[in-house]
């Protein structure tokens, strides 16, 4: 059992239209690398040129915003659920 990752619509073209994919990683940074291995091209969409997560993407680990946790160092374990969600909504 790996980590379940919910993929936002704009990136589902890269995941062969899959809304949810499975990954293996120890933290959020590692998750991005693992996603890139499985779905090449996804990293440049999630991260800017400096390798930092783009500012208009929110990532949640088990429903908690990683900015309330340890950002991209937030640890992950098997069974965790990660959601990647566009930040531009609401207000």
């Amino acid at each position, binding site marked *: 059992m790996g980590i379940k990752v919910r993929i936002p619509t704009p990136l589902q073209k890269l995941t062969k239209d899959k809304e949810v994919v499975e990954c293996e990683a120890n933290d959020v940074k590692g998750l991005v690398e693992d996603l890139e291995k499985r779905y090449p091209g996804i990293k440049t969409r999630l991260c*800017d040129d400096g390798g930092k997560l783009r500012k*208009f993407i929110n990532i*949640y680990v088990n429903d908690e915003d990683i900015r309330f946790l340890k950002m991209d160092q937030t640890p992950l374990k098997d069974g965790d659920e990660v959601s990647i969600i566009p930040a531009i909504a609401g*207000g």
Partner: protein
Amino acid sequence: MSYVKGLRCRECSRHYPKEALFVCEYCFGPLEVGYNYDKIKEALTKDVIESRPKNLWRYRELLPIDGKPTDGLNSGFTPLVAAHNLAKALGVKELYIKDDSVSHPTLSFKDRVVAVALSKAKEFGFNVVACASTGNLANAVASQARAARLKSYIFIPSDLEMTKIVGTLIYGPTLVAVEGNYDEVNRLCSEIASKYKWAFVNINIRPYYAEGSKTFGYEIAEQLGWKAPRHIIAPCAGGSLITKIWKALKEFKEIGLLDGLNTKMYAAQAAGCSPIVNAVKENSDIIKPVRPKTIAKSLAIGNPADGYYAVNTVKESGGWAESVSDEEIVDAIKLLAETEGIFTETAGGVTLGATKKLIAQGRIPKDEVIVVSITGNGLKTQEAVIDKIGKPIKIKPSLESFEKLVNA
């Protein structure tokens, strides 16, 4: 005829067609409506605007619809009140209240954005509209959707003020109270919006919806005699309104309706939810989300979508930002009622409270034109003041009983 060129990413400038899109597929930046300002300049003169009915559609060339406006035909053009008593109380020369507490039909500035969102949603052919709301938007969507014969789904945090719930349910929408704060509601709605083909006004219709807020800015300039004030204070929740007021003034300058523009924009938030104010004060490029704790529930967005742009607006215009405690919010609500006879909701208390502080700090000088943005009505947030305004005095139905009271 339409003056809309299409959508463009605010971050990476990629172009998109005018469809129900809101986020850049490449970098996740927000999409914004682009206009043909040269054509608008020819069509939209002061005379043309002044000849039209007094509602927000008098600026229709600068709004993102292709056909005729169909919704909110009586919304907008709220009073700009010359607030002499309040000016005196604050020790300033010239102060105005832009008063959307009397907006038609649901008593908040959200009537503006919903008017545009629903007109656009119909152009796109949607027959279900939806929103994530802290209350005012819920009222506006429920009301205008009903009048437009559209089905509506409205999502709110479950701890909302009773009046805002009643003011939504009366129109018969499907009202979903989510056990969580607004940011959690918003996140859920983002997931729902990607699955259901509905017009979520502040998600997939957001680029169009948000443009409605510009009319608040256009009206201020027109009502001041085609002049922009020196200072505008606006409340911030998601950060869109302040950004759009600023955009409105810049557009008016671009199409020649304003000679100059030296307005400073100020952001107001509650101390219990001030990610935008914090970023301005710390001169930070990052908006750090917060968990809201404030009586100003309509502003309780801890993760503001337009936070970056709100901060940029403040910086670019040379303004500043201030936050106020719950107690200061209530004091300011009372001050506005006692000086100008205007009862505003907690968000208005935030805006006026912040204005008061900015004047006291000398950030806003006393001899320049100030406009305070009042965006909602006090009848909707009575819980905030009910224990702080005294009680009616009970008497017997006799003259004796009354005279005992007046002579006491």
